[in-house]
């Protein structure tokens, strides 16, 4: 494995990043020897990665290289597919989510996920979509739900557009709005980590930049791991970038480092669009 994660380079270049004053960066996720399979097919190979709290990590790589599969192991969604298995460790705040006693349901409330295509529940209003996770957790108190809806829709930069039509179906919104609704829905359960799998790939440029802006703001509260096909997006919003190729994590480093001076030849070729 050639994982180029050097704490040293992290602290030096972090000097001019947003959290420069916050020199005490705490590791929130530690991934060790992670493998994911579809039956016999080895889709993610021996990945090791550390993610600090309140950073945005971008996952890049050619399509089919296992980014989605990898991200879906981090909230134990991968195993929901028939025949799909995982080995290795994912330690979230000191707790291995793959330990024998770990409960996937409660893990998923701590590691939220936004999907490639917006997926609001068609049977629910905007309001009910936002609080769907809270209701699953058994929270029914009207005042709590209302407060959460307003807070999360504001965080998702959607409040002004929908505050007068919370009773309308979630599906009545545009694609970009639906995706922000899904972000609000994810935030409502207060997960410390949010996974996003190409959240803007189905959206127009304006919705895309809204969501990018929102991710940058969310950083103060959550850790974001985002898969993206778009290099500019990765360099705009992420603190660290991981390059995947054929199921392997080839290089993982400061985003600037990856884009300016990658250590691996394959990273260099992918970034410069010379991949064959």
């Amino acid at each position, binding site marked *: 494995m050639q994982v180029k994660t050097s704490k040293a380079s992290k602290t030096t270049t972090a000097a001019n990043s947003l959290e420069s004053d916050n020199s005490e960066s705490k590791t929130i996720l530690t991934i060790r020897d992670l493998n994911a399979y579809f039956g016999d097919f080895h889709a993610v190979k021996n990945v090791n990665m550390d993610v600090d709290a309140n950073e945005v990590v971008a996952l890049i790589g050619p399509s089919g290289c296992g980014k989605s599969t990898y991200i879906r192991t981090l*909230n134990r*969604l991968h195993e*929901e597919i*028939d025949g799909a298995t995982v080995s290795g460790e994912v330690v979230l705040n000191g707790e291995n989510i793959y330990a024998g006693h770990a409960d996937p*349901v*409660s893990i*998923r*409330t701590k590691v*939220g*996920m936004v*999907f490639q*295509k917006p*997926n*609001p*529940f*068609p*049977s*629910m209003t905007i309001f009910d979509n936002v609080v*769907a*996770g809270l209701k*699953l*957790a058994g929270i029914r108190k009207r005042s709590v739900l209302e407060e959460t809806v307003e807070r999360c829709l504001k965080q998702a930069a959607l409040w002004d557009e929908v505050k007068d039509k919370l009773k*309308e*179906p979630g*599906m*009545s919104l545009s694609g970009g709005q639906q995706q922000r609704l*899904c972000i609000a*829905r*994810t935030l409502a*359960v207060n997960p410390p980590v949010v996974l996003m799998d190409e959240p803007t790939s189905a959206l127009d440029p304006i919705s895309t930049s809204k969501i990018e802006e929102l991710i940058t703001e969310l950083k103060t509260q959550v850790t974001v791991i985002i898969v993206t096909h778009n290099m500019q997006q990765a360099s705009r919003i992420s603190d660290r970038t991981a390059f995947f190729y054929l199921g392997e994590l080839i290089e993982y480093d400061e985003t600037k480092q990856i884009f300016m001076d990658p250590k691996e030849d394959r990273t260099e070729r992918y970034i410069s669009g010379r991949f064959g």
Partner: protein
Amino acid sequence: MDSFSKIQMTVLSMFSTNGRGRRREIHFADRVFYYLLKAIGVGILLLCASLIIFLYKAAEPAIAEFGWDFFITNEWDPEAQEYGALAFIWGTVVSSFIALLISVPVSVGAALFLTELSPKWLKAPVGFLVEMLAAIPSVVYGLWGIFLLAPFVRDYIQPILGNGFGFLPFFQGPPLGVGMLTAGIILAIMITPTITAISREVFRSIPDLLREGALALGATRWEMIKVAVLKTGVSGIVGAVILGLGRALGETMAVAMVIGNRAEISLSVFEPAATMASVIANEYAEANDDIDLASLAAVGFALFFVSLIINTIARFIIWRVESKSKG
């Protein structure tokens, strides 16, 4: 579909004579096709209208003779020239209701099992079996009902219900085997494959993305099914139930064979009864005068309207559900 496209091909080849203005020719062929479809659509409407008119004409002597009383009295005695269809309307509605009561939970449960829970290797064979069951002719169900179901109901189900819930008016009277309950059960068995097969298609058409969305929010498997599958598929389920109900309302042979055929209204489902379809089937061959025939036609007319009303209500439910979710 296939014959449609053949027609379209023929029409296209008829009009593509030379190379000039090919686009316009296709356009013209499209128009021909459009009018063809329109004619078929109008034809179906006309057929439907003529059916109603025919039924009404055939029933007119009875309706002229007995007026609305025909539909709200329950004396049916051709010997005494007394004709009132209420008992049959009651029989149809109640037996179908019993069938739904039993069948809907079973069917939806089976469909959920097939799409959400069943191991992969079991899905295809069970699914195939369900579809086979839907294709069995109803007279076969009827025979099975007479020889196996009716004795079973008489010896086990009726005693148990009678002992446990005999204080309710629904479960009183001697265990006869044949009767409303047995008819309801056999209808349930007949419509379950239909409702299951359609519900399964409905659930299958729900994208996994919604299921994963629910799981990612911390839903358990059952909560995921409730939030992402059942709630999303509810209008489809109602559609499936309508189709099953349509079969139950009109089912003739199997019901005629096990319901006991007595034109009486009783709250107890142990009692023999009769439905609109069963009385037509039973008495048509023996009807010997005009008023007899007209009365049976009037029962058919009533069956048509009861089906229409129930279907309208069900469509309304679907429409409400859909307008609530899609906006």
